């Protein structure tokens, strides 16, 4: 997994609550057995006029003029700001895969759906929770400034605006540690093989019908 330490990048706004995983990556793209290649299909039904299918060449597809991420000024954005309950719906990890593949490695929202939030950390994406007031500041600044950027520092747990305003955010120590170092948490768990084995033996003794 790619580590996440600091990021200074262009911000794109999606000013909408409850953006669900079906919107982030529609189901037809879930048929792929790969982890990559989903970026052009991120928000497919909102992004394009026509119906997308896996494997399509997206370069000539008609784009919806009213979809915010189609605006030229947001093309190189790596930070997405959005509203409450982002990523609700299914467990599909294709949603963070698509976000990452489209160039985003940080999403900032007042709240996230649990499974999506968790999936982000497994893929080197930092999901940041800021309160509604802070989100309003970010949305206003983004609307007012072409080329609006933010500076994210995971170690310091800060989001900084060029204006000097700084917000701090919370993140679990363990998740932070894994993300900062790009660690494979399966290897970390397997380092505890002895504990798992001895737990398993005791569990089997107490509840043999589970084995």
């Amino acid at each position, binding site marked *: 997994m790619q580590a996440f330490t600091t990021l200074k990048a262009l911000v794109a706004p999606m000013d909408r609550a*409850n953006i669900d995983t079906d919107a982030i990556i529609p189901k037809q793209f879930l048929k792929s*057995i790969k982890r990559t290649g989903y970026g052009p299909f991120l928000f497919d039904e909102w992004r394009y006029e026509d119906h997308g299918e896996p494997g399509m060449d997206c370069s000539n597809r008609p784009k919806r003029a009213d979809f915010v991420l189609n605006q030229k000024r947001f093309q190189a954005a790596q930070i997405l700001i959005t509203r409450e309950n982002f990523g609700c719906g299914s467990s599909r*990890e294709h949603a*963070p895969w698509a976000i990452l593949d489209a160039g985003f490695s940080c999403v900032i929202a007042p709240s996230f759906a649990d499974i999506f939030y968790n999936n982000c950390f497994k893929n080197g994406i930092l999901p940041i929770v800021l309160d509604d007031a802070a989100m309003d500041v970010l949305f206003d600044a983004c609307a007012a400034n072409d080329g609006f950027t933010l500076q994210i520092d995971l170690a310091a747990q800060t989001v900084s605006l060029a204006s000097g305003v700084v917000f701090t955010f919370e993140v679990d120590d363990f998740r932070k540690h894994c993300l900062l170092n790009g660690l494979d948490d*399966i290897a970390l768990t397997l380092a505890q093989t002895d504990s798992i084995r001895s737990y398993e033996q005791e569990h089997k003794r107490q*509840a043999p019908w589970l084995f």
Partner: protein
Amino acid sequence: MAKTLFEKVWDQHVVTKNDDGSVLLYIDRQLVHEVTSPQAFEGLRLAGRKPWRVNASVATPDHNVPTNNRDQGITDPVSRAQVEALDANCAEFGITEFGLGDIRQGVVHVMGPEQGLILPGMTVVCGDSHTSTHGAFGAIAMGIGTSEVEHVLASQCLIQKQPKSMRIRVEGTLPAGMTGKDVALYIIGKIGTAGGTGYAIEFAGSAIRALSMEGRMSLCNMTIEAGARCGMIAVDDVTIAYVKGRPYAPAGDAWLQAREAWVDLHSDADAVFDKELQFNAEDIAPQVSWGTSPEMVLPITASVPDPQHARDDVQSDGWSRALVYMDLKAGTPLQEITIDKVFIGSCTNGRIEDFREAAAMVKGKSVAGNIKLAMAVPGSGLVKQQAEAEGLDEVFRQAGFEWRDPGCSMCLAMNADRLEPGERCASTSNRNFEGRQGMGGRTHLVSPAMAAAAAIAGHFVDIRDWS
């Protein structure tokens, strides 16, 4: 110390505790399907890892499978490749799979309980958000992402933080004809799709205890639509009677031993929850969703709401977008909404009781002229077999329904079963997001009886007045 049901099961599965409060949690059962597993198996292969305990996982294809003309195989090459990848991965790693030709094949969340693979007090995961279904058995059951599927395959464990606890009591007696589905939609309408975020919910109260296992599964299934990590119901005689005698359930002495342990699987009388809510069963009427989120739901007697009456700007904005997408006008009575298609099935309502309830509504009647397609899709091959033994397939066919083979089908339209742009559907599934049942399709979530009645009338009706 007094414990909640969740705490009892959780504490029994903690392998180690980390400094930051997270734990390594042991997982007893993993269900696997074709969509969220290929990248996990690929990860195992790349790292040269083997499954920790192969008999803890059981697989079946469901999302992509065709629901008719099975003898012709899967015609869509992309879907076929994914199902074949599951077959190959299960064969390579030695995991039990109920494949396409197996009578036990079905939607994972129907197949698992039916086979006795889900037992009280277990920890259960699946790369699918509706894993919450299995909390109906007093199990901790959570949907996980593909990286975690790989993690569980490799180590039989997950790194987890204990969620907060919430108890939702529904007290009293549900009015006749009200189901677990109506209870689920009613609660989501009250607490919203983020109302459960960060919580493990326990459903309790006399109305919950009075539900069948099918009704409890429908309710727990939709806990994820309320944003919760999982939903649970205490173990009682109903649970134990359901599990008894199923193929993978313990038998003989092991059964007696297990049953004795399961008696304790309820919250202690003085257990403390972080949050408690209570609703009256008598207030629950047949529910119909009108918008593009499961929280946009109202009783059948209501009318489409006006965004001007929303709680705040965010909600008003959401309602306005939903009205445009759903092509509905504020003030329209829900009973006047006409529909094009009807879907009865899914992991929410694809069990035998659901088809009995729906069949009772359509028996001796015919679907309305404006209905382009009415489908009854059993949740598993065994549900199909049972329904046919009871003659339900004939009841549906004579009414003008199509009787299909088991799978997720039009719940998410990954196979050929889908809505065309602009079509409106009465659906017993669990999500009404934009495009969920097909690009531009419009979904109304209802119970099986409500969907069946709507098929006959051509529009939504109050089944309490139905004869």
